[in-house]
């Protein structure tokens, strides 16, 4: 599904990713863990096509296509979805309108007919129920005045509606209390499936108790320092990242 090979990325001339290689297969949930400054968010942003990131070398292939050659909106249409660490507030734009524009852009790309207002609203209500989101939030302006939990749930709703092949969750747990964390994780787990790959980026092990990964990759200083199964997350929780740092330096 996703194949990243020797990826080097700089921001404002400063190298952040320094030779990152990673494979994520369809149906797999891969967790990317790492300390602050290791390049986790850079990875999420560069995969989604955010401007300001310079790829100096390496490649990213998504479903056999060169992902880096596509604009952000083209990547989304191909099935890449980024759940933002800080979802953006857009006053003056209704959540329902925003979602419908997004859904229809993806449908048009897949050569499916656009959803009319009635079809769309029905589908949105179903998905809102599924991810346990307050129906009133559809009528509000995008993320405006939403609580932290509501914003993250809105991200999960968008993911459910857009039905991506690759979902990247960038520190979805940040700023959430335990109830919100559980609710958002439930939403994510509902969307796990054999055709979808997920990349779950997090600083803490606690999210991975709710979204149990198939693979855990540790990102340290711009490259994957270690990979393992879900038990690696627990080991990191216990030993911290310094243990790996020493290890990497010794290697």
């Amino acid at each position, binding site marked *: 599904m996703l194949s990243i090979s020797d990826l080097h990325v700089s921001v404002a001339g400063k190298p952040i990713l320094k030779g990152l290689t990673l494979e994520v297969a369809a149906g797999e949930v891969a967790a990317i863990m790492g300390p602050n400054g290791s390049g986790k968010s850079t990875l999420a942003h560069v995969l989604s096509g955010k401007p300001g990131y310079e790829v100096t070398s390496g490649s990213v292939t998504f479903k056999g296509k060169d992902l880096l050659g596509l604009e952000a*909106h083209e990547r989304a249409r191909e099935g890449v979805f980024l759940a933002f660490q800080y979802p953006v507030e857009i006053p003056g734009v209704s959540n329902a309108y925003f979602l419908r*524009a997004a859904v229809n852009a993806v449908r048009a790309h897949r050569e499916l007919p656009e959803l009319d207002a009635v079809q769309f609203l029905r589908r949105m209500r179903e998905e809102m129920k599924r991810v346990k989101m307050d129906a009133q939030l559809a009528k509000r302006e995008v993320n405006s005045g939403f609580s932290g939990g509501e914003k993250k749930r809105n991200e999960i709703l968008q993911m459910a509606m857009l039905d991506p092949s690759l979902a990247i969750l960038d520190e979805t747990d940040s700023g959430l209390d335990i109830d919100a964390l559980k609710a958002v994780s439930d939403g994510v787990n509902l969307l796990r499936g054999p055709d979808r790959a997920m990349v779950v980026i997090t600083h803490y092990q606690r999210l991975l108790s709710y979204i149990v990964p198939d693979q855990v990759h540790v990102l340290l200083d711009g490259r994957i320092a270690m990979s393992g199964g879900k038990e690696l997350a627990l080991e990191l929780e216990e030993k911290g990242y310094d243990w790996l740092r020493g290890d990497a330096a010794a290697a």
Partner: protein
Amino acid sequence: MTSEQPWLGALRARGRARFEALGLPSTKAEAWRYFPTRSLRGVDLGAGRPAGGAPDRLEAIDPARVAAARLPGTVACAVFVDGRFAAAASDLGELPAGVTIGSLAAALANDPERVRAHLGSVAPSEGAALVAANESWFADGLWVDVPANTAVAGPVQVLFLTTDAAGPATHPRNVVVMGRSAELTLVLGWSGPAGRAYATNAVTELVLGDNATLRLTNVEDEGAGATHVHHVQARQGRDSTLRTFALSLGGESARTSIRAELGASGASCHLDGLYLAAGAQRLDHYTEVDHQAPHTASNQYYAGVIDDKAVGSYLGVVFIREGAAKTDASQLNKNLLLAPGATANSKPQLEIDHDDVKASHGTTVGQLDDKALFYLLSRAIGPEEARGILTLAFAQDALSRLGDDAYAATLVHRVAAKLRAEAVLDAEAELAPGDDDDDDATPEGAE
């Protein structure tokens, strides 16, 4: 037509003398600093109508043009063609008893003393060159007389249409007189041919009696080669309310200035506006609010969306005079620049001569929010649609001040069209909560 009253001849002569003494306004004058009048240089402003002379032939107007311009929900429509009232094209419907809406020239013929009491009394030509030019050369304009305790039930539309037959300049003079506790909504629209240069130099005088309420929506949508200057001035009685909305869309260069005099306790004015400047357009707004009495209130919200190499300007002065205790004044101007060559000039100003007042002002000039833009792109929305969505969202705060009348929706559409965001607006309307009733529906008696 009979010859004009001597007093009117004297008024015109005064206007002419003042205009000649002053000459065209220069950008050295603070009020005109953002609006060069060079496009008026060399224009024979008096050519349209020799003072006191007979009216020119009234150009026939295509009924389809009037029908196309008619806004929904308006109860009457007065049409002016090349600065003169066109009775046949107008639809004055059924107005409440005692209400007069129509031609100033006709009112001057029928009831000169009534007009004389107000004409030129609100907007003085002293020191105001283009008001003076209008005073000298106006042929006609809107005359509205609403008696005390009378409300006109729906909005009244007034169309000022310029045709290819118009002279180089027209000078509509509008006078609106509202008695005590009178209520009225007026929607003025200005349009003309795209293919030629012409000038409109209009003056609108508003007299609001005690407790009167006037809503005035002004839609400047002149032809692409036009120079448009419109000065609105209001004198407000005790507890009266003036709400204006100045929408600027058209013209090569267009300026709408509004001066509100809050001369009696409890008077308030709400001056709002939206200007969409593109190409090489220069759209200018000047406001002056004069708090002369205690317990007066004003607020202003002007928003500009400026694209290409256009210039959008807002210059607003609020005077709070000595003795205007408990005054509450605010002014806010926000600008969105859509292109590197676009320019916004913004200067809200407060001049306060009394201590016990509340006053605030603010201004912003910015571009589309990169974070919001990327958020939309990351959700598969194409760059052009994303920009349209965000631009329309920026204009929303201003548009919401147009009110709930049916005509407002049409104007919102016109704005969306100029912003290339009509599809956004249509899709939003389809998803509006009104269409979305089954999610709150609870079956009767269901437990």
